[in-house]
């Protein structure tokens, strides 16, 4: 092995830093899925009848579905009867009626400590007193339930609803009824059906007409309990002329077994509204031999229903044993805009099959896709994207760029762009590149005095720069640090 290769090896061998387990009593149900379990979850959340009906329909549909096998990811079949579909910290769900702690003071300190350890402060006081100009409102989801939501009152002043999904079901059933499942139907795919059946919480957000959300909103997902699946659901509605920037972060303890995370995210923008959704996904990726890690099978989709509306997905994917997701945009409103910016990193035995779908329906709709895949170790990275220009999508435009960077000689990268154009006026462009960090680049940097490991980090950051630029400031810093942790062994 050359010295370069050794350095690369050390560099990419970083340890997962969020792998601890919080020792807390959890209220969980026995493994396995049945109508009884669905009813139990719905009862635990004290849900109205329409929700239970919807879940049962989803469950019956799910029973008819086969596990999809078309992706480039490989894993042994999941035993859906071995998964625990509901787990919640006991103290935060002391009564089964779905009530949550009213204020942060009531949240179990152990949970607050867990989030503090993860660098997610849930103390509004501390945040308000902080020097940073921008504040972030957080909805913290711990296993199956939301444990804390910050800045709710601040947001309520401008009419924004930001709360756990289960609370929205109780307090705003009309909005849930109107929008739930309208972007990602329970019939959409195997995992979406499973999610609709058993999802227990998540975040709900409604931005009223003309309101520009004064702070970043975020959801922080944490899987803690063993053998548990996390099935949360996020629903964000931006009413006419409104704007919101939303962040999502995720971590999980290091466990030898694989754990399933099958979330659904639905975004809806009405006329002239904009949603910017950013994800830094850092689920436990498994160990160096590929043992353990999260299966991240997520359905994320946005619907630009209104004219001139815009949905933008930015994702930095560094974790999970397997990532399988395609944040997409349905461009229904005329002149609407869809964007997808992605950095996906796979190391050791991680696999990622990710990309996007841009479905152009309205006139003059436009979309941009920028995907950066980095593969190290035995990592396998696949970009899969669909750009569909419908019959009425007059003058629709798309530009796609997919770049892959390979580290070492055991990693792989694949690109599968699908393009369908049904109107002669549309314009679709696709560019793809694959490159390696060359010995020449490293020699060049080293000759200028830059240590090789710093040079690798600098080259990778340079490769991802166009995407990092799209992240909100605080997140961009976190993302860059995360890339370094995921890639570095021993800098300095």
């Amino acid at each position, binding site marked *: 092995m050359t010295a370069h290769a050794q350095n690369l090896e050390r560099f990419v061998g970083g340890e997962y830093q969020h792998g601890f387990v919080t020792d807390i009593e959890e209220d969980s149900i026995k493994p396995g899925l049945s109508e009884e379990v669905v009813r139990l979850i719905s009862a635990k959340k004290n849900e109205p009848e329409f929700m239970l009906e919807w879940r049962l329909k989803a469950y019956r549909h799910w029973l008819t579905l086969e596990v999809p096998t078309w992706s480039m990811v490989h894993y042994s079949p999941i035993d859906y009867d071995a998964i625990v579909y509901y787990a919640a910290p006991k103290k935060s769900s002391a009564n089964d009626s779905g009530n949550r702690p009213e204020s942060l003071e009531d949240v179990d300190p152990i949970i607050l400590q867990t989030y503090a350890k993860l660098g997610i402060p849930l103390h509004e006081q501390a945040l308000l007193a902080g020097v940073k100009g921008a504040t972030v409102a957080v909805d913290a989801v711990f296993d199956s339930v939301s444990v804390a939501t910050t800045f709710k009152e601040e947001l309520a002043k401008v009419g924004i609803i930001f709360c756990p999904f289960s609370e929205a079901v109780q307090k705003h059933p009309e909005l849930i009824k109107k929008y739930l499942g309208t972007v990602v139907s329970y019939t959409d795919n195997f995992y979406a059906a499973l999610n609709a059946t058993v999802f227990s919480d998540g975040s709900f957000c409604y931005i009223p007409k003309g309101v520009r959300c004064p702070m970043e909103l975020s959801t922080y997902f944490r899987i803690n309990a063993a053998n548990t699946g996390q099935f949360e659901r996020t629903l964000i509605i931006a009413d006419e002329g409104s704007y919101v920037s939303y962040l999502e972060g995720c971590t999980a303890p290091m466990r030898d077994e694989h754990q399933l995370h099958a979330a659904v995210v639905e975004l809806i923008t009405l006329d002239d509204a904009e949603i910017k959704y950013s994800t830094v996904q850092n689920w436990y990726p498994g160990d160096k031999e590929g043992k353990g890690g999260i299966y991240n099978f997520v359905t994320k989709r946005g619907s630009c229903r209104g004219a001139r509306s815009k949905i933008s997905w930015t994702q930095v994917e560094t974790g999970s044993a397997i990532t399988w997701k395609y944040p997409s945009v349905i461009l229904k409103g005329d002149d609407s805009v869809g964007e997808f910016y992605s950095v996906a990193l796979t190391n050791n035995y991680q696999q990622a099959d990710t990309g996007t779908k841009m479905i152009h329906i309205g006139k003059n709709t436009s979309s941009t896709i920028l995907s950066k895949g980095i593969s190290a170790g035995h990592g396998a990275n696949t970009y899969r994207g669909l750009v569909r220009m419908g019959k009425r999508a007059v003058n629709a435009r798309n530009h796609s760029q997919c770049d892959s960077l390979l580290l070492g000689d055991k990693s792989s990268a694949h690109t599968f762009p699908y393009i369908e154009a049904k109107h002669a006026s549309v314009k679709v462009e696709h560019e793809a590149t694959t490159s390696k960090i060359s010995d*020449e680049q490293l020699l060049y*940097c080293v000759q200028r*005095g*830059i240590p090789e490991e*710093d040079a690798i980090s*600098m080259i990778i950051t*340079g490769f991802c*720069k166009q995407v990092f630029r799209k992240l909100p400031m605080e997140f961009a810093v976190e993302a860059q640090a995360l890339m370094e942790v995921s890639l570095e062994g021993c800098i300095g």
Partner: protein
Amino acid sequence: MKTKHILKIRSLFASIDGNDILRDLNLDVKQGEVHAIMGPNGSGKSTLAHVLIGNKDYIVTSGEIEYEGHDLLSLSAHERACKGIFMAFQYPIDIPGVSNMQFLKTAVNSLRKYRGLDELNAIDFIPHVKAKVKKIGGDEKLLHRAVNEGFSGGEKKRNEILQMLVLEPKLAILDETDSGLDIDALRVVAEGVNAYRSDTLKDQKGALIIITHYQRLLNYIKPDYVHIFMNGRIVQSAGPELAHELEAKGYKAWAA
């Protein structure tokens, strides 16, 4: 006062991919001196440059190199850079997404860290770099472009000289920096090199090695010594007049 050796090369043999390139090379370079190494394609000039910077593709099979009185061959490429050896590459490579400014700052601070100096912050660093950009007649916009990405041949060479001025090496090696340049670009590069010569070379008591095919660069940068390189070794050394003789007679006059 006796001037000190920067570089002492004795009976150096080196190969690449199993082909012997340098064969019994000897060279002395002292403080403040400018040496021009001239020779035909394939004579081993660039090999010498790569051996000096520690490119591992080049294998030294025997011989010795002393740099400032210490063994050079036992040092890694990074250590050599940190100890002040710089090469302007013949084919500078692109680093997409990394701005020239970021690259230069990272390099300067890496060197400073190695030398036990405090890192420079942007406030101290930016004026230093901007002053150097002026010396190569460049536009400050150059600093915000990604390293060598989309640069013309001339811009790349000029960028190499900018790096040399910013990093202030003790031993600078220009590997065919003049090849592929038009007259104007050549003049700009030569001005940059002369700035290095007057600013840095004297203070740091450093030295400069210019590797070139042609005499034309030497019209702008007057060397102290000219060496003719054939088949992996120096076949003749003399003052600057040798370059003119070479231009008139061609390399064939020296081919054995």
